[in-house]
């Protein structure tokens, strides 16, 4: 794990789970697999706190455990999974676009809690939806359960590995840790539950989150003491499926940008049909015949077979090679070259970064070297039609930032510099890795800056929160305008200005984090596709 990744993981864990979990998590990421006592000793935290932290991390699928010989259980952190925390808003928003509010809340609850049983999810989501509905209306459990089943069918949620049923309880001492197993076939199998009920609305007196004395609120007691029918069957969000969806979205929008709406629809149809038949890490989709594509096009599109064939030919002939023709049967068999697409997207990202950082002339040189693969200094100047001095300057700038690399070709065995060719080239994979590393650093910087801004204005933020609380309580008990005015004036105009600026800055920093995460997704997908399995 690079230092930048570790720093980012540390910031994410601290923001979402607190300092103790962060300390344990970062220690595990740094040192790899370790047993419980060693963790406690090395981090200097008490055993009790280490246990609590590990329970939380295991619950959220950030740490896994393994039983080694002599009964020692070792814990290992998953750094890449910690970085996914950045993408939670995108997952939830995608669920919203596909399955409306119900789907959105289901995925949100699963992400917030790591893993949950189906009945627990359904109950919680129904309660939350009931809160937002008008008075008198409640959300039925069956509807929520329906959406849950649809999510499971399309593989957006999956079962967690199960504890094996204890066959013989007296076969010696129980193992120090259960080995969790999951059958491929059972991963999306929804248990038969008859969930009958409606969401409950919390009583309004309990609803205040304004900081009033909570000491008077009665302790939360579990509503039902009945045995849960699907006890032990936990569900989690299937992040890989979401990634597949994002990748498909990226492909479709790339085609739409390059060609037109109709071609992007055709590509979308092809992706949709091959969703089920193609594994997510395949280099290209299963071949689809043009007849099949015509049949599966969405209802609104009345394209004749001939027009479709023309579009497909155009797509297949495109130099970017998104779509390839793999045969002639059935009117032409077409595949989508997934790995090539990811490579093109990564290259486009690199080009865009060079353009925005160094200017359009640098971008021209970069694209030139990409196209021609290897070029000498003199050739670059000639082909790009840029004066020598500037071309040299730009090349060296890009070289120092590692977008371009040098390839030495010696003429003589002693590699004498005066008798060696130096060729400029772009190695996309290594440039992508370098850019990914920079992205991690960027997000870490953004988070730090946001925390700094918030800390600077902490006093002001607390004051404004208190004032809001007072206003809310006064409005609830019915107060006159004049009194409310007076309270509002407790915050002076320059303070309001400061608060506005703070809010704008924090919003901008947050939005930037989300956008950098999109780039991270593209680059990570590309790098993963190049790793030979």
């Amino acid at each position: 794990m690079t230092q930048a990744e570790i720093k980012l993981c540390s910031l994410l864990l601290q923001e979402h789970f607190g300092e103790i979990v962060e300390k344990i998590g970062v220690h595990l990421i740094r040192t790899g697999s370790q047993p419980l006592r060693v963790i406690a000793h090395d981090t200097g935290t008490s055993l009790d706190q280490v246990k609590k932290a590990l329970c939380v991390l295991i619950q959220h699928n950030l740490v896994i455990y393994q039983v080694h010989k002599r009964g020692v259980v070792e814990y290992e952190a998953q750094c890449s999974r910690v970085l996914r925390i950045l993408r939670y808003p995108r997952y939830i928003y995608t669920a919203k676009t596909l399955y409306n509010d119900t789907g959105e809340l289901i995925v949100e609850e699963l992400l917030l809690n790591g893993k949950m049983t189906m009945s627990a999810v359904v109950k919680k989501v129904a309660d939350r939806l009931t809160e937002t509905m008008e008075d008198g209306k409640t959300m039925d459990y069956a509807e929520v359960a329906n959406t849950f089943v649809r999510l499971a069918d399309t593989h957006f949620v999956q079962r967690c590995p199960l504890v094996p049923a204890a066959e013989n309880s007296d076969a010696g001492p129980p193992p120090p840790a259960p080995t969790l197993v999951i059958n491929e076939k059972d991963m999306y199998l929804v248990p038969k539950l008859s969930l009958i009920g409606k969401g409950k609305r919390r009583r309004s007196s309990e609803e205040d989150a304004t900081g009033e004395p909570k000491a008077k609120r009665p302790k939360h007691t579990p509503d039902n003491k009945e045995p849960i029918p699907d006890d032990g069957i936990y569900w989690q969000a299937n992040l890989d499926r979401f990634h597949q969806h994002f990748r498909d979205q990226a492909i479709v929008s790339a085609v739409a940008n390059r060609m037109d709406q109709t071609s992007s629809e055709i590509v979308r149809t092809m992706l949709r049909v091959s969703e089920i038949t193609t594994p997510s890490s395949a280099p290209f989709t299963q071949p689809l015949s043009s007849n099949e594509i015509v049949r599966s096009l969405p209802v609104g599109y009345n394209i004749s077979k001939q027009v479709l064939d023309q579009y497909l030919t155009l797509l297949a002939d495109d130099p970017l090679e998104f779509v390839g023709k793999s045969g002639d049967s059935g009117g032409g068999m077409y595949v989508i070259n997934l790995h090539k697409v990811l490579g093109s997207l990564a290259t486009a990202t690199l080009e865009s970064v060079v353009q925005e950082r160094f200017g359009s002339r640098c971008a021209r040189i970069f694209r030139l070297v990409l196209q021609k693969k290897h070029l000498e200094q003199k050739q670059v100047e000639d082909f790009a039609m840029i004066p020598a001095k500037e071309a040299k300057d730009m090349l060296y700038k890009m070289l120092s930032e590692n977008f371009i690399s040098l390839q030495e070709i010696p003429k003589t065995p002693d590699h004498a510099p005066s008798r060696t060719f130096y060729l400029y080239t772009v190695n996309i994979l290594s440039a992508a890795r370098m850019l990914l590393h920079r992205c991690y650093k960027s997000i870490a910087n953004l988070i730090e800056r946001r925390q700094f801004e918030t800390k600077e204005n902490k006093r002001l933020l607390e004051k404004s929160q208190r004032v809001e609380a007072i206003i809310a309580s006064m409005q609830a008990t019915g107060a006159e305008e004049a009194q409310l005015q007076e309270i509002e004036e407790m915050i002076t105009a320059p303070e309001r200005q400061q608060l506005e600026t703070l809010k704008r800055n924090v919003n901008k920093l947050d939005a930037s984090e989300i956008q950098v995460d999109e780039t991270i997704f593209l680059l990570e997908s590309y790098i993963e596709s190049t790793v030979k399995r």
Partner: protein
Amino acid sequence: MAGNKGRGRAAYTFNIEAVGFSRGEKLPDVALKPPPLFPDTDYKPVPVKTGEGEEYMLALKQELRETMKRMPYFIETPEEKQDIERYSKRYMKVYKEEWIPDWRRLPREMMPRKKCKKGPKSKKAKDTTGKGTSFTNTADVLKKIEELEKRSDGEKSDEENEEKEGSKEKSKEGDDDEEDDAAEEEEYDEEEQEEENDYINSYFEDGDDFGADSDDNMDEATY
């Protein structure tokens, strides 16, 4: 050697023209310090994307951050004692729901110490209280021990001694548990002690019959 243009004269080992400088030209200055931390950029960054989806995701992100702080998974660091105890602090505490993980899915060592002790204890209870007498009450145990002491030694059977052993162990542990419940510091000490005495820990966790081992020490343990 061939190639030495002249004594003491600087000569490059490579063709300077290949790099782009003409002969005799002034070379750029050598950098004597690291590049600045926040360099000026000629090209300002592109504005952040805005749109309905982006705004929604932004709101989601901020809400998620706030919600996670209130979840039971967010473990607060214990604060150091403040100089002045503020009255308002008592009312600003956020009451969090207690979260209990599913112990079946976690390694056994994850469970808090108290429950672990009950494990072997219940096994011993099964072994030694076969006769149906329950030794849960400490006072009863002490009374029983006194009664047994009054009887002659010869009448003591192995089983009775076993029972007493088990009951005494339980009473000791019962005391320990009560002490643990009473004060957290003592529980902490208990754990610390257990950490040091690894030998004793493994002794219990192995799940071996305590009754079986105690058979060996029958002669001494009669008090």
